[in-house]
């Protein structure tokens, strides 16, 4: 049994939001006072792991900490305590089209993004055609990305992420973009990705999508794991839980 590519152990994240919002030295000096700190415990110690080739969906209400969890895994945030480790190369798709520079052309952005995701220039050159073809952006690839439509940005972003040979794909609520055809293509690509042994962790509110691709579900509720299980076990419970219990 191979090592689990994603291991989350007793992960906690606290955000400090200071109410004053000081952002200049002048303000800090003139209006100096003891900081009023508001802390948000976004994740209150969660543990789970994802096995190789598994596809795990994270579900939960808004503010449950789903996106924070992905960001922590993508190493955008540093955990307050606990660990979130990914073995192998991770391609985070936290928001499509993020990291594109609007003044650079689509082509230049492909290079730039793939290199940040860990490819070498030569490797990018080999698969650049594939990326362009998959994204269906066609002739616009040499236009600055600021001229792209949001659909084009999304397709290009997805296309790059699935072509960098990542071991782990972190997807945050992005499969809903693009038209029906493209969505189908995305699912096909995800199946292919998994057939090659890739691991996926994704966040979704779309229960149909979860049923379709996920092997397991992690139900986050207010920073705790409420339930882990197969979609067939978790989703009915999740859907039947009335909103009111959120307050409890």
């Amino acid at each position: 049994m191979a090592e689990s590519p994603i291991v989350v152990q007793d992960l906690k994240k606290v955000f400090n939001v200071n109410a004053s919002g000081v952002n200049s030295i002048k303000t800090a000096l003139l209006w100096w006072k003891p900081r009023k700190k508001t802390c948000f415990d976004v994740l209150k110690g969660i543990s789970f792991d994802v096995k190789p080739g598994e596809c795990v969906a994270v579900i939960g209400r808004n503010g449950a900490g789903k996106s924070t969890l992905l960001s922590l895994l993508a190493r955008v945030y540093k955990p307050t305590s606990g660990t979130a480790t990914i073995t192998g190369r991770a391609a985070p798709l936290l928001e499509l089209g993020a990291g594109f520079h609007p003044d650079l052309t689509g082509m230049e952005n492909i290079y730039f993004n793939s290199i940040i995701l860990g490819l070498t220039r030569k490797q990018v050159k080999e698969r650049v055609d594939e990326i362009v073809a998959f994204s269906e952006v066609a002739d616009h690839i040499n236009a600055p990305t600021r001229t792209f439509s949001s659909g084009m940005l999304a397709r290009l972003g997805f296309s790059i992420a699935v072509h960098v040979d990542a071991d782990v794909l972190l997807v945050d609520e992005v499969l809903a973009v693009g038209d029906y055809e493209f969505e189908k293509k995305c699912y096909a690509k995800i199946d292919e990705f998994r057939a090659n042994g890739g691991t996926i962790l994704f966040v979704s509110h779309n229960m149909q999508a979860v049923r379709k691709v996920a092997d397991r579900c992690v139900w986050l509720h207010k920073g705790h794991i409420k339930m882990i299980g197969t979609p067939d076990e978790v989703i009915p419970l999740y859907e039947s839980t009335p909103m009111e219990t959120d307050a409890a």
Partner: protein
Amino acid sequence: MVQRELKIRYKNSALGFFWSMLNPLITVLVMSFVFQNFLSNGVPSATAYILAAYLPFTFFQLCLMDSAQTILTALPLIRKIYFPREILPIASVISNFIHLLLALVMFVIYMLAVYIIHPGQWPFQATSVFLPVLLLINFCLSLGLSFYISAFNTFYEDVKYIVGVMTYLMFFLCPILYFEERVANSPLNQAWGGKIYMFMNANPVFALSNAYRKILIAPQKIMVDKVLVDPLPLDWRYVAWAAFVSVAILISGYSTFNRLKWKFVERP
């Protein structure tokens, strides 16, 4: 990353890389016009002397100014993908460094052109081989300060204005528009028994500006109060001090940056 920086900078300008030459060139022409004609120190080829110190100073100044915004402009990227955050200030400093090298090439061309038009003393001297040493010190200093500034400016957005004022004032505290001999021979310095000269030299940027000038162009006698004064030899102790300070700033800047880098995404 550096490539991206350069590309963006020149993306929308038809003259492209020519700009990086043009900026120092125009500055130097204006300065030499004023200096040769109105503010002459009794030194021929004042332009060359100013240039030798001014170009590295511009590099230093631009590094600090540019670094302030590096993290903020890349914030959307930082929020989405992990990559070593240090790359941002490093890329900014490197791209400015490339500009400095280009400007120095221009400087050499300028010197040769002057030599061809007015043949006289061969303008270059053997000590120029120390140039890489000075560039390295300068690079460390600029990078170290860039780490500090880029990290702090992320939390306090007025840091960049403070840096702007400080580098502007620094310009006048460094021997760029004047010669260090003037500092050494000033009544103030003599009244303090040479302390002022030492104090100003303790500023690494002062020491570096002076060293650039001394190693690149043959020193000349300088008119101070209508008396010609012999040029001072380059005091390597001050250069060594500058190197020490620069490396110290680089190390502490880097560790500060590393300590703060996880907070960039969580800035208020």
